């Protein structure tokens, strides 16, 4: 079992500083994924595992901060080695961002570290 790593950075403006920013992560291609979410520079884990409507905080509070999301995807689909993950942000200009890639062999892991600059 190999782990293929990749790092990406995106920037997203907050639409309404008075409203909360929510995050949902989905893994497509019938693959299984897990997440570890922290604020960059702080080792405290905000959330692990499945992420649905995770409240990252009020827009004015998180503005200027960088969110670090580590998503690990296991290829469990015998039909494809393709992996695809989508990050949905509520109350942000980058409302959905999708990344896709391919692992070499069935059963390998794809590890994406995404930095989101608010």
């Amino acid at each position, binding site marked *: 079992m190999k782990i293929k790593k990749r790092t990406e950075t995106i920037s997203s403006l907050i639409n309404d500083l008075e409203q909360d920013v929510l995050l949902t992560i989905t893994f497509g291609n019938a693959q299984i*994924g897990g997440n*570890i979410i922290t604020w960059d520079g702080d080792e405290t884990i905000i959330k692990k595992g*499945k992420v649905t409507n995770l409240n990252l905080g009020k827009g004015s509070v998180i503005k200027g901060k960088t969110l670090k999301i580590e998503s690990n995807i296991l290829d469990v*689909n015998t039909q494809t080695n*393709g992996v695809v993950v989508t990050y949905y942000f509520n109350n942000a200009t980058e409302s959905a961002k999708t990344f896709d890639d391919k692992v070499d*062999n069935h059963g390998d892991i794809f590890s994406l570290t995404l930095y989101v600059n608010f």
Partner: protein
Amino acid sequence: MKKCIQIYVTILVFGSNQFYAQTAEMDELNVPSSPAFVILDESPANIEKPTNPKALAVSLISVGQGGGAIEFSPYWLYNHPNYTIDDEINNHIPFWQTFAISLASIKENDATTVSTGFRVQLFRKYTDEADILATRDQIVGALSISPPNTDNIAALHSQLDEQRGKIKWNIEIAGAYSAIGTEVKNLTSNRLGAWMNIRHTPKGFPIDFVLLGRYSKTFGDSNNLIEDSSFIDFGASISKRTDNFDLQLEYVYRRDTNLDLNFDRLVFVSNYKITDNVVAVASFGKNFDKVQDIFTAFGIKVGLSKQTMKLDNAD
């Protein structure tokens, strides 16, 4: 994408002359995984499995020009960001996800035989979806640790594959067609086949049930020197499989629609795994033939592959 390749040598200890013919047909209650190759009566040495449109185009050109074989699933040529593992487990009509096409061409002397086939699951329900979802949750948990523990995840993945291999209900169909000719404009029909398979593995009951309907037709030549022949088969089997042994009772009713004749066959087969690469085989029963139709056989299958053997693929 994984594909186990297993090669066996069968050593006949005692049996009738019909042993080889019988064992070759023992798996006929299954829908073939690559119908286009079955209808050719050939096992292509190299099967291209393109996973994106560009690779598919290259493979199609290759097969068209020099012969070869392709197998692909149109649905999986593209990513599906919204099709999650939960959708997959709860999808009881996975038509597009399981629809697979096989294509092959073989050049012999001046003639080329081309074949095309498809296979699709019309209905699928896993034996225990709750267990699968529980394992999925464990995998999600294991993937949410940095860095992931690969040994633990590999073990959970094996567990998941085993659970997804247990299917309570499965209905599959397949079809294939082949034609032969020296060039495209003079291709003539060669063979035609259609299969339908219904499998049932009751939860908590150690026996599998299989029903199969099959139609096969071989076209005669244009000079009427060889007549068309066609068969309709209906079959049923019950089997019990464990880690070390495999017992199967199979009945096939065959109707020769050209000669207007009916035949049937009843076979009992047992496989016992002696070691990881050696399987003892015993079979007896009644063949399709109208005379001398009783046969028995005992043998040993020796696996030449280094890969782990699975009894359910031993035939």
